[in-house]
């Protein structure tokens, strides 16, 4: 794949990539943009190589996830070392959010991390469970378990009635 092809692919997946970066960075917009930019640069300068074992989309999402978690660790370390000098910006105050959206974000934040990630990849980004498993580097079996438990818990937290198909 030439750099121009790669750039075109990245551009095509940009909106979904941004949404995933937001989700990986706890919905902090600036952190998400940093993670996204770093991921693009990693891919374009060859630090992250696409071997073709998966789709380009799952590859990109895995790079974003790894970059966001590196960034989170770095920020946590910086926070420990520098304490109050480096207060991180909190996510934007959700006061103006529509109520339903707020409920969803609140419910998602109380799920286990893996459950939330699988649900976001499947519902938010339209991936299959297999693709979500590949993106998160976990087995399909455990992705299924996270998916069904997460969905059940989310439905309960949102007060949705009726059986949730697993």
């Amino acid at each position, binding site marked *: 794949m030439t750099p121009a092809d790669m750039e075109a692919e990245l551009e095509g997946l940009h909106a979904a990539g941004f949404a995933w970066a937001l989700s990986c960075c706890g919905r902090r917009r600036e952190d998400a943009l940093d993670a996204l930019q770093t991921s693009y640069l990693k891919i374009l300068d060859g630090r992250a190589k696409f071997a073709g074992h998966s789709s380009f989309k799952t590859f990109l999402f895995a790079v974003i996830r790894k970059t966001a978690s590196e960034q989170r660790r770095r920020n946590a370390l910086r926070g420990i070392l520098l304490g109050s000098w480096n207060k991180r910006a909190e996510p934007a105050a959700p006061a103006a959010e529509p109520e339903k959206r707020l409920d969803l974000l609140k419910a998602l934040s109380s799920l286990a991390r893996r459950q939330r990630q699988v649900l*976001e990849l499947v519902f938010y980004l339209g991936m299959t469970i297999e693709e979500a498993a590949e993106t998160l580097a976990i087995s399909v079996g455990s992705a299924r378990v996270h998916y069904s438990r997460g969905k059940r818990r989310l439905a309960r937290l949102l007060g949705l009635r009726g059986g949730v198909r697993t």
Partner: protein
Amino acid sequence: MTDPDREISRLFEELRRTDVADAPGFRQVLGRRRLPHQGQAGSAWRPALIALGVVLCVAVVLIRHNADSSRVPTTGLTSWKAPTDALLQTPGAELFDSTPEFAEPIPDYSGLMASPETIPH
């Protein structure tokens, strides 16, 4: 898909639509400068780095000062002698380092040797 499934999908779809509408363009993200909060992080590192530099300078000065005051005058390696060298000096040891000499030249006794004619038969 059951109703709760549909409802969850709808909520996620709504969330995604709002997030994506807010997304900056691809080129904008790729070419953006590093962000204000990273600048803040850099400036947050600066006091720590300055403090570290000051501590290092003070440590170097103190170490040098201590080293100067505790320095013992030392002799050069070539002029050093073991303090126990004196024990190796034994009486007569110089005999092993020199060739013995006779006090006078050996006397010439060749004249005393008898000639063949004078030897009686």
